[in-house]
């Protein structure tokens, strides 16, 4: 995984828009919430291989980054993205890692199921 290059992510988002794609979206607080002094609630959520089609997708922020995808009836959103897999050329594999390198958030988009 490498530090996110927004232009490369944007290119992948454009490449994958307008067709049915598989999405993995995940968020987990792990020890992060406690570290930040928030109520110590360990929470995790993920949805794997959800099929969506988005009409617009873009990356925003100055790092960590945010990605928003507009679907027919709603949105897919991830905030806190720091890294991506630059070896993949037809799928997006992005994640946000905390200071200890632990994964906090993941967003993956592909034409094939993960």
């Amino acid at each position, binding site marked *: 995984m490498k530090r996110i290059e927004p232009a490369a992510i944007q290119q992948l988002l454009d490449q994958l828009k307008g067709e049915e794609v598989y999405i993995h979206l995940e968020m987990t607080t792990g020890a992060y919430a406690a570290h930040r002094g928030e109520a110590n609630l360990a929470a995790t959520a993920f949805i794997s291989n959800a099929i969506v089609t988005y009409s*617009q*997708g*873009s990356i*925003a*922020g100055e790092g960590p980054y*945010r990605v*928003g*995808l*507009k679907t027919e009836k*709603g*949105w897919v*959103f991830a905030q806190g993205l720091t890294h991506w897999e630059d070896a993949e050329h037809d799928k997006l594999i992005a994640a946000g890692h905390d200071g200890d390198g632990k994964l906090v958030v993941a967003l993956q988009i592909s034409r094939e199921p993960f």
Partner: protein
Amino acid sequence: MTRQGNILVVLPHPDDESIIGGTIIQHIQQGAHVTYVCMTLGEMGRNMGTPLFANRVTLPRIREKELDEACRILGIHEVQKWGLHDKMVEFEDRAYWVQRIQELIRATKPKLVLTFYPGHGVHPDHDACGEMVIRAVSGLAPEERPVVQCIAVTRQGKQLLGPPDLENDVSDVVDQKIESLLQHQTQFQLMMGDYSPDKPEKKERYKIERLWTYRF
């Protein structure tokens, strides 16, 4: 500036208007007609009331009612809820919304537009909203352009932007402003902290509102 004619307020969340609630009240008292575009319903907010009285499904309706009440108390003449999704303003089709804002400016001919200062909103929705308004106004002929005054909430705002162009004393209407602000009950704790009317020192911070004029 004389405080009459039309004023357009464009902000992304219910309760954003309370930041400049006193200024809005003063303009209205002096005869201005205020239209407020509230882009989202703040439906992704994390505050669900204390004790909890809202959930993800009910929150948009509840915040819409809070907004209506707050605006009624401020005296705002027209509230337009544009229905963008909370937190997603920056990912929207900007060109489309810029055009909508332009159309509204051409239709209502405001002499003043109030919004967030792009880059000084802290929340991405605030920045995106401010950017769209600035783009909309930039696209107008110079003689069509209303004055745009902006809210800056970043800590370094004063250093980067210089002192505010308007340091508005709203002491005369601060009770009405706070009454409006209190309508956002789901957000009450967040916004007011441990505010209570019998703590005069808490009231002080609501008495001055700062605005920066955008220079095109």
